[in-house]
């Protein structure tokens, strides 16, 4: 094998630093007392504590799933810290002046705009550090449109009726092992509510950061778009570099009523572990959107580049007639990373449509699987799905797999599935090099071409970021 195919993959992880900040943490381990502690710490109403305890008791009866095409040491749930928050004089920061300067510097270093004056025009940000939301920008401005954008804890206090109505309505606590765990111990996250007929005037964004070495991050995101409302939401994440694994088990629920539209974009860059597979985040996430209303639309776009293990299937339940679900994904794995990711499109309503575009890129010794379900239920007259799953291999020690599941119970349905596997091989690189283009730029161009159908779904700034990120992640895998 040429020298070229061994170098483009070993850029250091530049977000791997640890913030030295005093944390208010509960002792490691999980039991009902810990759950009561979290609930009390957040001043939650009784119904929510009951919701948690019920989820916990159910979780105890479940076994960790092992059907995914990933291999890892099972987390010891008694060694995880379930609550960790930067220590503050007051429980909630009244203004940015009260935030520990060390924390502010952390986000500055990460390039996350938490200062409204200095922030990117047109993006409001909720910042979550370990278990708590640090700040949310542009809250007041959004309020004039009737839009609620705040941390989950705050929403529980200020808008309990909305939380009670929608929490668990898309991902019930008993849904799966990690969703049950999250429902029992979730600490913070974001809540978005777009009222009837309102188009959110700016992109909303949450930035997640795991800092504590032993803590897990269990955030909860809930987005509700009422009739005719629309919103574009972005999620970003990083974590410091540790030689142990941290667990990230989030739940994201989206609800779209009649004619509403939610676009959810993620650029996931959790620490992936080192070249030998030591350390890194276990990313076990449940993301699901409910197209509840007629002609509603939910669109997931994800660029997955980080984590040691990724296990996530952002899905759409197409309940409303004529509703539309979309899934655009780029998953890149390198070194010893393992990803098993894809989507579920469940067609229940009439004339529902779904589109799945998945691009998997594997390099190094990594393993990258697409797993997707397209299900057409009996009354989903006229349902249509188009799926395209493409895999690209860089080098010859990585693997790519595709597991498409198609269940059709209505004869009028049209389901199309296309899959390809290609290789960035010597011939392709040689062609570019023969035209004077160095290998690394060649790979970046080939990869961007491969991912074009997904990148064009991302908001502009994210697309630029994603392009850079992929090039960085692959640096050194060709040389």
């Amino acid at each position, binding site marked *: 094998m040429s020298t070229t195919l061994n170098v483009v993959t070993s850029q250091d992880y530049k977000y791997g630093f640890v913030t030295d900040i005093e944390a208010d943490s509960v002792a490691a381990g999980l039991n009902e007392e810990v759950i009561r502690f979290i609930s009390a710490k957040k001043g939650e109403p009784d119904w929510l504590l009951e919701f948690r305890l019920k989820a916990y008791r159910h979780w105890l009866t479940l076994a960790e799933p092992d059907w995914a095409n990933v291999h890892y040491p099972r987390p010891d749930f008694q060694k995880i810290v379930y609550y960790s928050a930067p220590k503050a004089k007051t429980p909630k920061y009244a203004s940015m002046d009260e935030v520990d300067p060390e924390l502010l510097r952390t986000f500055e270093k990460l390039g996350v705009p938490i200062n409204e004056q200095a922030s990117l025009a047109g993006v409001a940000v909720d910042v979550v550090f370990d278990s708590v939301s640090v700040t949310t920008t542009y809250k007041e401005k959004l309020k004039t449109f009737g839009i609620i954008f705040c941390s989950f804890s705050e929403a529980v206090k200020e808008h309990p009726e909305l939380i009670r109505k929608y929490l668990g309505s898309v991902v019930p606590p008993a849904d799966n092992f990690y969703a049950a765990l999250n429902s029992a111990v979730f600490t913070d996250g974001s809540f978005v509510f777009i009222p009837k007929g309102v188009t959110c005037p700016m992109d909303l964004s949450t930035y997640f950061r795991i800092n504590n070495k032993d803590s897990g991050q269990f955030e909860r995101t809930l987005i509700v778009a009422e009739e005719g409302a629309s919103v574009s939401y972005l999620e970003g994440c990083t974590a410091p570099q540790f030689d142990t694994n941290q667990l990230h088990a989030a739940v994201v629920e989206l609800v779209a009523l009649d004619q509403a539209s939610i676009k959810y974009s993620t650029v996931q860059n959790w620490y992936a572990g080192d070249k030998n597979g030591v350390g890194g985040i276990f990313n076990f996430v449940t993301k699901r959107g409910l197209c509840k209303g007629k002609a509603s639309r939910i669109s997931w776009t994800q660029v997955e580049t980080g984590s040691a293990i990724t296990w996530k299937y952002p899905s759409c339940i197409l309940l409303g007639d004529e509703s539309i679900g979309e899934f655009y994904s780029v998953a890149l794995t390198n070194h010893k990373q393992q990803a098993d990711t894809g989507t579920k499109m469940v067609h229940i309503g009439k004339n529902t449509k779904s589109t799945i575009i998945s691009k998997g890129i594997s390099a190094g010794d990594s393993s990258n699987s697409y797993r997707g379900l397209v299900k057409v239920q009996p009354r989903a007259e006229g349902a249509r799905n188009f799926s395209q799953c493409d895999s690209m291999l860089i080098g010859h020690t990585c693997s790519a797999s595709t597991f498409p599941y198609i269940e059709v119970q209505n004869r009028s349905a049209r389901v199309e599935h296309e899959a390809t596997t290609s290789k960035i091989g*010597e011939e392709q690189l040689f062609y*570019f*090099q*023969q*035209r004077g*283009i*160095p290998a690394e730029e060649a790979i970046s*161009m080939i990869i*961007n071409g491969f991912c074009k159908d997904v990148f064009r779904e991302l908001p502009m700034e994210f697309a630029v970021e994603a392009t850079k990120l992929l090039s960085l992640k692959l640096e050194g895998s060709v040389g």
Partner: protein
Amino acid sequence: MLSIKNLTASINGTPVLKGIDLDIKAGEIHAIMGPNGSGKSTLGKVLAGHPAYEVTGGEVLFEGRDLFRMAADERARAGLFMGFQHPIEVPGVSNASFLRLAYNKKAEAEGRDELDPLEFDDFIHEKIKLVAMREEFLDRSLNEGFSGGEKKRNEILQMAVLEPKLAILDELDSGLDIDALRVLGDAVNRLQRADRALLIITHFPRILETIQPDYVHVLSGGRILKSAGKELALELEERGYDWVLEASAAGGAR
């Protein structure tokens, strides 16, 4: 311009080139001909720096520089171009953006101004006329779904964009009909100048009616068996390759 001395090369341990000597001067057109499997495509790939081939001996100087001390992309930026027999397809990468990146890499290496997309657009619209390519091919993905002829047209377009000192054209005529061959042959002739050189690798003499070589070399079994003027191409057309091979074997002449 190019001086090859006793070049030997192998692929996966099997020797393919067994001692090639060749001198190409500025302004010259050379043709390498030979039966299939003779090693003529290998010669092109070795000169261009294909990673699958191992150079086991000999020396090649390109414009006075040791070619084997330069990476493939460096050779290209220094003015060595290879037109591929089978150009690869790259989905999602537009032909125009690929051409512009290649152009700008060379411009950068030569200290010339790089072209922004608008400037390049004007530049490339002049170039496509030379190869009679339709505009739509600029916006399409690089070689994706191109016919054999369209791919070859695209190779010569790249040559026109990069204006190399030495162009090695590997089986330009394969997959081309008579008319397309004439158009591309004329384009190559128009690109040839006193300070540039061409190395045409071909199995069939037909292409040499349009691109007339100064020298014709017959390559077989990894060696050049015979070198002569362009009249040799005509003789090969009439008599095939066997007589050269037989004469070489009988005379033990090398």
